[in-house]
């Protein structure tokens, strides 16, 4: 039990550091996915600990929301790339087309 939670925390930390450190918008997105996955692991672990399936339902909803979020986020990245020819988060500091 504790091992699963520790692994989840480590993965979450790696994802958070990745969001802060990496400059490529797509890699930043992947780090967000890693954080969501880490919380999913914690959800599933707690579901097993408490002996009911509510945690697994929560993880399932997280997956659905993550899928929707990735679709919209990647569409935004593609449209930004079209106007700026760059996928770096540093170049998109001005909020104008």
């Amino acid at each position, binding site marked *: 039990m*504790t091992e699963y939670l520790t692994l989840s925390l480590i993965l979450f*930390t*790696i994802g958070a550091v*990745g969001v802060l450190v*990496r400059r490529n918008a797509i890699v930043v997105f992947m780090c967000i996915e890693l954080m969501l996955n880490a919380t999913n692991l914690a959800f599933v672990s707690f579901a097993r*600990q*408490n*002996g009911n399936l509510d945690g697994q339902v929560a993880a399932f*909803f997280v997956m659905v929301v993550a899928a929707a979020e990735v679709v919209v986020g*990647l569409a935004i990245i593609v449209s930004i790339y079209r106007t700026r020819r760059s996928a770096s988060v540093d170049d998109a500091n001005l909020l104008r087309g």
Partner: protein
Amino acid sequence: MVVAALGLLFARKAVHAALCLAVVMISLAVLYAAQGAPFLFAVQIIVYTGAIMMLFLFVLMLVGIDASDSLKETIKGQRLAATVVGLLFGVTAVLALGQTVTGTVVGLREANQHGNPYGLAELLFGPYVLAFEFTSALLITAALGAMVLAHRERLGRRITQAETAERRMREYAETGRHPGNPPTPGVYARHNAVDTPALLPDGTPAEDSVSDTVRSRGQEVPPGASPLPTAGDARREEDGDD
């Protein structure tokens, strides 16, 4: 698994980071299966490694596979500060976790007695049915949003074949450019890829024979590095067969 996650941090190319993330996700699926969640195991593999990672790779291809991360810092000391803060957070969280008492693990044997998907469905369509309906609305909105965001209006009129032919003939009349196909790239015994320019009869490379795309990527074999075997090459091959 942690190593693959760290690869996400340190991989220079975005494609390598994506592959590392795929490894992490498949390992997570295995952990789900080990913890009595076979339905989430299947969903994780299908949705995450199947759909989401494919979407990531697809966008990477669209945006440019060579786009690697710049190491230039825009905010001074931000990278170091972020690493320190992240490490602090991780250490604190793991220590706090070590202090907590998690109690005994009940296990899912009872909850899974009719099978895991059955139990999940009972919850999803029972107490969580409203959230489930909202999820469908969210998915439709996301699909519509992605279509709107990725849509691009055609800026100019479509150029027809007849207009192309007319433009070529006009160019021939005005500048003398040949209206036919440009010359094909060079085909030699040692190298016949599209990045090698063809040689004109006087030995100079024909600039037209290499695609502009190849040239703008800087993948063209420069005229100096001729792919044609020279006398020196032949001598080296004779000597170097040991």
